[in-house]
């Protein structure tokens, strides 16, 4: 592709992202090889990443692993770029990959899952809540360990959708 074509392409993508992404954007970078478009917005309000940057020594340690909320833009861009969908925890609790300690995990990296197929459970108040895939696809990454505490909204797994029904 010529540089000229490429620029038009990048611009289209930048605009498209700005249009489609929700939330207060801070920065969009679209790059291909040496060609790049970067747009940065003025800081309209306090965003989570700004908080993280401003944290003093006695800063909060996020209880579990970095939640989805902490870097929404980066995550979204990544998932758009790589066409991945995240499965997030619908509650605070403890994530388990298998129905019981002795059992095989529901899924492993590389597995193909169907929409609504169980991929793990989150235990909260001694109740086990099944977590299901939101779309059909391939499990490309499992972000939390077995028996790990998770927050509301925390990403558990990344899936590369095989169809478009539930890619987002």
């Amino acid at each position, binding site marked *: 592709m010529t540089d000229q074509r490429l620029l038009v392409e990048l611009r289209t993508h930048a605009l498209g992202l700005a249009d489609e992404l929700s939330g207060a954007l801070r920065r969009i970078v679209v790059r291909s090889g040496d060609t790049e478009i970067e747009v940065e917005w003025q800081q*309209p309000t306090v965003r989570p990443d700004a908080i993280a940057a401003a944290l003093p020594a006695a800063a909060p340690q996020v209880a579990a692993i970095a939640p989805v909320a902490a870097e929404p833009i980066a995550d979204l861009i990544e998932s758009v770029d790589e066409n991945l969908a995240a499965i997030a925890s619908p*509650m605070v609790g403890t994530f388990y990959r298998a129905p019981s300690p002795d059992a095989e995990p529901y899924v492993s990296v590389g597995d193909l899952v169907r929409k609504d197929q169980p991929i793990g459970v989150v235990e909260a108040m001694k109740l086990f809540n099944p977590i299901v895939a939101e779309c059909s696809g391939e499990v490309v990454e499992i972000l939390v360990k077995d028996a790990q505490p998770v927050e509301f909204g925390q990403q558990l797994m990344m899936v590369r959708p095989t169809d478009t029904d539930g890619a987002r």
Partner: protein
Amino acid sequence: MFKKVLIANRGEIALRVARACRELGINSVGVYSTADRDDLVLRHFDEVVHIGPPAGRRSYLNAAAIIEAASQTGADAVHPGYGFLSEDPDFAEVCVDNDLTFIGPRAEVMGALGDKSTARRLMLDQGLPLLPGSVEALRTYAEAKSEADAVGYPIIIKAVAGGGGKGMSVVHAPDDLETAYRAARATAAAVFGDGRVYLERYVAAARHVEVQILCDHYGNGIHLGTRDCSVQRRHQKLIEEGPAPALSQATLDDITSTAVRGALAIGFTGAGTFEFLVDENEKFYFMEVNARLQVEHTVSEMITGIDLVHEQLHVAAGVPLRLSQQDVEVRGHAIECRVNGEDPDRDFAPTAGLIERFIPPGGPFTRVDTHAFSGYRLGPHYDSLLAKVIVWAPDRIGALNRMERALGEFEVSGPGVRTTIPMLRRVLADFEFRKAEHSTAIVPRLLGN
């Protein structure tokens, strides 16, 4: 003492408790909903847990999420703040079941006090004066009618499970009773899930006076003086002050010792408030107990020099009261104004939007409790309290002048953002209020309704 306390609340009160924890060397765990995730309040906690989406019932009222968050972080106690789960005996019980100290009274005491009918019965048995009316819930309209006739009109109908000014109805004449009674029952059933109501004499021009109580687990209880909260709009407090003005020392002594007696008799523990109605002859009547920290606890702190949350944490941890009644010396006068994000031109409807510039007042004897800042986004999900401004002075007029100064320099601006500041300044400038001759009728009068 606790090692780690989870604060099951948001906004200024979560910050208030986090400050106390930090000052006492206790680690704090904050919880937040998605709506609050960008909030700079989160930097005040040592750890934070994202507990749910914006809707209160799925986040700050979500007992399961809060208990799980406490377990995950290894907290040994839960501070409920005010509102949300703070007066829910079931939540207090679940905390205990999960080896967490609930920072508040025992679940059964809280349950008894939350049922106004039980609370009235308990206090009547302890000899506390009640307004003429039905102690127990009314069973039938006929019972309501005969009770109302005996008490004499006007009367007020209240929900047994109510609180915070919700579900009350004033009846001025017998003809209106039946409609009001049935409507009140329906409302109570809808709002509180409990249709029981009771009635008592309605005193239009009374003062709302309350006593701050602090009790430990060893039968010791003290009070931290009185507060007057007569400046209310539809039973929502706007201005609180302490000590209650224009009452004789004898009345103040009587009302405070009555409250302590009542609290100890029912086995109350922790920080709480006994609310009374005081008529123009300084006769006072027990209304209800708030079994939690209150928004206006700051007023008591300013006049006594006692950090109520510090003491609350200590007694909850099983430490005997560190103060005797003689240690509590009320000094000077304090006033609190609630700055809410509300639009007075739209009947005080909550406003939302970006607060572009937020410059709180400062200077001598001026305290501000707020979670807001320049760049804060006031959302539609929770209550509209933006900041509490509290001032102290050696005397009441000095405190009023100082508050007028403080509100005058308070800048809150942003597109569509309106606050109660102009309304508060109208009250402060009111001649009757300055003379402390006001009653709960003051705000309706100023608003012309």
